[in-house]
């Protein structure tokens, strides 16, 4: 595989992704078709400084093939075998004026495996890791489920996350929401999520949207992603999200929780799973109104959702399509129920 792509190829596909990582603010707004007022001040900047007025591919074109082979040489010299330490990735990004994400992409293309993903390795190949890096997932809701899903997808190496939540952290979130801490009470959940990902895996670009998901705004909010994770806490909003995913032909990984109980399923375009599951519900809130949610249920269900999202992105395994996995942590039973129209 050529280390440096010709600029023509850079104008679309994976090359375009590279530019997204480089300019999270400006390029995301263009990629996601968001009106400026939706993105103003929302895009989280990576800590590594980068040039804001150039597209990354332009920078690479200007630098030319020699520069890129220099970079490859630089990375190889710093690699331990085929493992690339984070310090080398960060230094290379700084030295060559690239984003951490783009540097990671070039490293993976050159057959170098970032050390941070070493324990993924028996499960995911280099090619899988590259697919994940070039993928974009929307996590709708940054509370109990969303916090864990975002954490796991970022650690897994999904390169781009759009995280959506209108709320700020409140004290009653502290019992279960991994992103909640005494320090962040009163801060927008989506922005805290972006900050957390920047701490954990700065190669991941996060677009935080401090806004409620709505069907009318859906094209701007979730278009362009490969997978949507349903981490909402409102049944009617979930139905709207499911409909929006149908309209945009996006796979939706659904999870919901109440007390000791939860459920997970994956709605592929055309299957209308959620409207079949919740079609009889007139209320926004289910049995969680009485049961609340303890600490462990969102962690379990969000982890199942992260695994589903990973499989859908990679085309691996057997996702929960046409079946719902019911989780009962009181009896400690996981039952699969077939769903058909």
């Amino acid at each position: 595989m050529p280390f440096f792509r010709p600029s023509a190829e850079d104008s679309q596909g994976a090359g375009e992704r590279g530019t997204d990582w480089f300019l999270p603010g400006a390029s995301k707004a263009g990629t996601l078709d968001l009106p400026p007022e939706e993105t103003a001040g929302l895009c989280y900047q990576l800590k590594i400084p980068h040039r804001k007025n150039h597209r990354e591919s332009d920078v690479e074109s200007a630098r030319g093939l020699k520069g890129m082979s220099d970079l490859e040489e630089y990375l190889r010299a710093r690699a331990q075998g085929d493992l690339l330490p984070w310090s080398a990735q960060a230094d290379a990004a700084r030295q060559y004026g690239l984003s951490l994400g783009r540097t990671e992409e070039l490293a993976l293309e050159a057959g170098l495996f970032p050390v941070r993903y070493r324990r993924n390795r028996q499960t995911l190949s280099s090619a899988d890791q590259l697919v994940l890096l070039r993928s974009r997932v929307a996590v709708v809701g940054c509370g109990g489920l969303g916090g864990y899903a975002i954490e796991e997808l970022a650690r897994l190496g999904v390169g781009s996350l759009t995280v959506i939540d209108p709320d700020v952290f409140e004290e009653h979130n502290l019992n279960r929401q991994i992103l909640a801490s005494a320090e962040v009470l009163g801060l927008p959940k989506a922005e805290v999520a972006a900050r957390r990902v920047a701490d954990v895996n700065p190669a991941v670009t996060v677009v935080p949207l401090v806004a409620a998901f709505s069907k009318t705004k859906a094209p701007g909010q979730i278009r362009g992603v490969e997978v949507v994770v349903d981490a909402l806490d409102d049944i009617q909003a979930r139905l709207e999200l499911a409909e929006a995913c149908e309209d945009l032909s996006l796979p939706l990984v659904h999870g919901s929780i109440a007390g000791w109980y939860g459920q997970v399923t994956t709605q592929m375009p055309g299957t209308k799973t959620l409207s079949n599951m919740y079609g009889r519900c007139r209320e926004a809130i289910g049995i969680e109104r009485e049961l609340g949610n303890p600490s462990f249920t969102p962690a379990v269900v969000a982890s199942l959702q992260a695994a589903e999202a990973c499989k859908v992105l990679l085309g691996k395994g057997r996702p929960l399509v046409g079946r719902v996995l019911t989780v009962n942590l009181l009896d400690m039973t996981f039952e699969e129920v077939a769903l058909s129209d």
Partner: protein
Amino acid sequence: MRISVKLFATLREGRFTSDARDVSAGSTAGDVIRQLGIREEEAALILVNGKHGDMSTFLSEGDTVAVFPPIGGG
């Protein structure tokens, strides 16, 4: 006629996980659900032999009715 009923999550409390029951011919899923003291709004999802059903779905000998409460938290 004899049918099977499977209950999920909170619907099991004070009832059962799975049970075989005798019901009169012509019974609907709703009849069985009401007999079990489950309120209609508690039966968010009703599956009859794995297919989507509702309170008025007629049952036949040997059918399995699965009932789920609404779970919507995140």
